[in-house]
């Protein structure tokens, strides 16, 4: 089975700076793989390990996705190779453009049986790209998948919904978005990180793949909310006296 796991490179939230005019600055931000996309990579690895197959990782975004630390972060988690579409034209791609670019990349990779997405991207968390991508490719498309196993040529998946669990049999090719509890992503060893540097990575620009770029939504503004003023009375240490002091504050608040 040929599996492609999709991950998005997102800014570390704690490094995002709110400026005086409430807009956000990302110049100091470290970039990382979206936390929940690690579950997609891990799901691909576990499926390939159990049923045979080959896992590739795929990410699209601005030039920053083509960074050796990030590439190692993806490849050290098991995939045999990596595909990137790294182009600053993709910096502000919405879910539609993102899915269109991923669809073009999946077609160019060719012969893909299963595309795995995370539950949602770390920054936007729209939980949409997998659905849009699946329809664009004309593949069987499912989300909320909490278990996936191979059975012959088909996949048996469990889908955890609000009030019930569906057990479904899906014929590939398919696009599946997995939940965050489907697995515990492995933590790569130093050896795996070293080895990752030697695995093949292919980087394309937007011009190298057949895709139509063009956002369908227009962003008018992205502004930090005004934060509430907090008293910040912090007691240091859990001695009996400090606990008694906290109790007095609490008692007043709860009165």
């Amino acid at each position, binding site marked *: 089975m040929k599996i492609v796991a999709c991950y998005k490179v997102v800014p570390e939230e704690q490094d995002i700076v709110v400026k005086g005019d409430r807009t956000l600055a990302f110049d100091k931000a470290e970039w990382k793989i979206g936390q929940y996309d690690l579950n997609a990579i891990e799901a691909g690895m576990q499926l390939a390990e159990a049923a045979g197959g080959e896992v590739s990782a795929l990410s699209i975004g601005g030039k920053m996705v083509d960074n050796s630390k990030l590439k190692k972060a993806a490849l050290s988690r098991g995939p045999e190779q990596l595909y990137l579409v790294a182009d600053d034209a993709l910096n502000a791609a919405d879910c539609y453009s993102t899915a269109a670019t991923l669809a073009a990349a999946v077609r160019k990779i060719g012969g893909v049986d299963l595309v795995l997405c995370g539950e949602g991207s770390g920054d936007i968390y*729209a939980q949409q790209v997998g*659905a849009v991508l*699946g329809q664009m490719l004309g593949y069987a498309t499912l989300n909320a998948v909490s278990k996936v196993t191979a059975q012959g040529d088909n996949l048996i998946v469990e889908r955890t919904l609000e009030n019930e669990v569906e057990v479904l049999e899906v014929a590939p090719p*398919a696009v599946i978005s997995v939940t965050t509890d489907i697995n515990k992503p492995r933590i790569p060893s130093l050896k795996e990180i070293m080895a990752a540097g030697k695995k093949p990575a292919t980087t394309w620009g937007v011009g190298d793949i057949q895709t139509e770029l063009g956002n369908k939504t227009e962003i*008018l503004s992205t502004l930090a909310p005004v934060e509430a003023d907090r008293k910040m009375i912090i007691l240091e240490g859990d001695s009996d006296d400090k606990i008694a002091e906290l109790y007095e504050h609490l008692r007043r608040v709860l009165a």
Partner: protein
Amino acid sequence: MSKLANVWIIGEEIPAINELTAGAKTLGGQTAVVFTGDEEQTAQILGVNTIYYLGTLADKILETYTPSIIKLVMTEKPNLILVSNTRKGRLLAGTLAAACGTNVLTDITEVVAVDNGVQSQRMVYGGAAFRTEKSTNTINIACVGAGVFECSELPASEKVVEVEFVAPSVSIKCLKKRAKLGEKVNLAAAKRVVGVGRGLKAGEDLKMVEAFAAAIKAEMGCSRPIAEEEKWMAKERYIGVSGVMLKPEVYLALGISGQIQHTVGVNQAKTIIAVNKDKNAAIFKQADYGIVGDMYKVIPALTEKFQK
């Protein structure tokens, strides 16, 4: 305020559908619901000009009807489709968006009609910012949760139109459906909430926190990892951008680091109190009162004092 000519609603549960309909009526002229399910349920769909009825879910899943819905939408071209943000709703919204050449506005907290489209707001970067977006495509789609629109009294719907079935070209076979066990909780109504995070070392230790919550008459909530990863508490109890958003009078964060995705769910609380052993934890910058200490020492001690 501008109005749209046609606004449609797609949802699974009747109360959610009727809530979206109440909102749809403030945004547009003609309204319609696209529905799969039992006939009795169909009769409870109120307030719309048309109910497009697809069929039952007895031997099918909603996804079986996706091609039928796409064909209907592409023929009728409503200006806006409001989709209830359940798991299936999200999938359908994205699938429809790909077919119609639009981008879904997800988890919006606010939406207004503007010239030939809609403008909406949602949280991004885990709650660090609000983003205002505009969608002015032929067909626009928004995924909307509960509480965005106010319910209103709705008259009976006018007519039911049966929709022609279009067989899917992909193969997804339902082998089994099983009910999920879960508790129903309504944290949003609680005035006092105790939230517990990864500082908890084992599921059994929840007893200690429960005793404390009971002593101060608070409801129990948690951070996402406690529900999603450890599964020590129900998913309905995790607070934050992807969980429940609260506005209690008092919030007590125990062993919670205070990352934005969590705190955005409680930052409207009147008073925030934090217990964390790390004095640099982000939660202290967002707290009114706090103690740098071991919750395993602080919580039982406080419980005892409150029980007196």
